[in-house]
């Protein structure tokens, strides 16, 4: 049941997108890239709103699009899309918008509305069930769009910057909710985002495109460890772990971390490589996390150096070239890594 997209799309403006993208069931692929890279174009092609020029899209042995003869209409593909500009139906209330996909697929009216209401509650719009989209604020509208796409339980979720208009705290909670949903979700997901945190937290695989071409792809940890370009390095600079929390202590697969915000249960923890300090000796002071590491690799980027460190847990650190000289950084060197608890973001996974 793998979704395979090996395609080329040419637009009248001369823009050309080449994509080779397999998505396994249950997998979440994050599509990242600068403005105009072709992210939305890719989504539209998978949704069936734009036929491919060459190549094909298929889900398992079912071909969705292969010129010159095969084309499955969008309504016959089990997709759910959050559009970058939402495209909510202005003449329907929030509940009716969310219920639309269910109704279209034959769910009885009452049940469809019931489920739509639940979804709206999930994204924090309990008070706006019967509001028309024009009367919603930007962030509220975006959440309706997200609920609408999720409500039909589609086999392929296509999310185009689904959290961009949300304020910081709503974003946190909706992201967590979305993460929970995606973790239990058997379908395929393609997530477009400009926020590396969204990408790293929600996705199993990152695909970075620039100018219509894939420049790098792979699991977040791997991409972060070995970014091919400065752009990628800048974009995916994040140490990300799964673990199990008990108060402010998170037990990882190897090692533990102390965080500021007490939580319980399985969590994600993340902090940027820049947040990691390296010391020859364990320092005394505010950082709550301090553990021995060994330099495994060093890579120079624009103005910073990314240091791969083995340890429990293994970690990436961004330092200045001056630090490299100062500490005589070289593979094999033993050091102490420190990270402040307040630098670590946690969210339930």
């Amino acid at each position: 049941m793998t979704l395979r997209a090996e395609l080329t799309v040419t637009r009248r403006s001369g823009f050309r997108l080449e994509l080779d993208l397999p998505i396994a069931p249950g997998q979440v692929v994050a599509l990242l890239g600068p403005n105009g890279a072709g992210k939305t174009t890719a989504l539209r092609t998978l949704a069936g709103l734009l036929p491919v020029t060459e190549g094909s899209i298929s889900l398992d042995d079912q071909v969705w699009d292969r010129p010159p003869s095969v084309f499955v209409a969008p309504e016959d593909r089990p997709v759910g899309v959050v559009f970058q500009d939402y495209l909510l139906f202005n003449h329907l209330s929030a509940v009716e918008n969310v219920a639309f996909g269910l109704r279209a697929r034959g769910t009885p009216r009452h049940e469809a509305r019931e489920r739509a209401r639940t979804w709206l509650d999930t994204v924090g719009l309990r008070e706006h069930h019967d509001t028309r989209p024009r009367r919603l604020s930007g962030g509220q509208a975006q959440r309706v769009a997200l609920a609408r796409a999720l409500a039909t339980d589609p086999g392929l979720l296509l999310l185009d910057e689904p959290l961009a208009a949300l304020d910081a705290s709503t974003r946190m909670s909706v992201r967590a909710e979305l993460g929970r949903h995606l973790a239990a979700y058997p379908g395929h997901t393609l997530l477009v985002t400009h926020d590396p945190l969204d990408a790293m937290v929600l996705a199993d695989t990152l695909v970075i495109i620039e100018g219509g071409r894939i420049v790098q792809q792979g699991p977040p940890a791997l991409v972060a460890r070995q970014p091919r370009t400065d752009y990628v390095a800048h974009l995916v600079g994040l140490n990300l772990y799964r673990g199990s929390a008990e108060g402010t202590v998170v037990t990882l697969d190897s090692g533990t971390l102390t965080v500021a915000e007490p939580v319980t249960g399985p969590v994600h923890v993340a902090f940027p490589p820049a947040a990691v300090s390296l010391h020859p000796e364990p320092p005394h002071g505010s950082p709550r996390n301090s553990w021995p590491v060994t330099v495994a690799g060093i890579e120079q980027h624009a103005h910073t150096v990314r240091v791969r460190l083995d340890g429990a847990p293994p970690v990436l650190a961004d330092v200045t070239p001056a630090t490299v000289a100062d500490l005589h950084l070289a593979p094999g060197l033993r050091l102490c890594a420190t990270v402040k608890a307040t630098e670590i973001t946690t969210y339930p996974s």
Partner: protein
Amino acid sequence: MTGRARAARRGRLPVVLAVPALIGLAFLIVPLAGLLVRAPWTSLGEQLFSEAVGQALLLSVVCASLATLVCLVLGVPLAWLLARANLPGRGVLRALVTVPLVLPPVVGGVALLLVLGRRGIIGEHLDAWFGISLPFTTAGVVIAEAFVAMPFLVISVEGALRGADPRFEEAAATLGASRWYTFRRVTLPSIAPGLVAGTVLCWARALGEFGATITFAGNFPGKTTTMPLAVYLALETDPGAAIVLSIVLLLLSVVVLVSLRDRWISTPS
């Protein structure tokens, strides 16, 4: 000055628009006023309450409404076909659909007779196989009116469809909505103002239809004599009465339009 009045000031009119608008309004309304002024009001009462007039009025409204219904059922899908489907030669089709507008209605009636009359290309078979004869029946009136009025509906709904943003239909498709479901639940509501305008044009045109009706359906009181036919006959005998009858028809349509449109149309906020 209330909040409403302040909002109205926001909507104050630029002269360059208001002046032609008012001239246009005058151009349409002053002749009606002229009719009202010159109408022989003394004979109004008896004209108005005669049984024949009542019959004709009722028949007019019923036939025009039925014809509008026919036009909606056939014309809205046709408009959709012209606006959305990728047909070859769509431009020519669209022009052909416009053509009954240009046809003098009497010739339209003749054309209908040629096709649906008892000796007509199709009517012959209708008569032979099913014993159905459309001319000179109330059904014939509905058909004649629909034939003349449908292009108005089709063209204006097509214009509205063209103006509507097709991305909402795309969004509906990604939600699994079939074309038909999308059409009902997304397309139609989003062109509501254009649809209402087209329906009004269609109904009004059907209500005022004369040439095709008298040619195709004849002029049988109680069966096919609608108000415009009654007006025509009155012109033969008593022009004053014709004007009064026309005014009755006008009043009726104003009443219907005012009462219906304000229910259907709510200005988008």
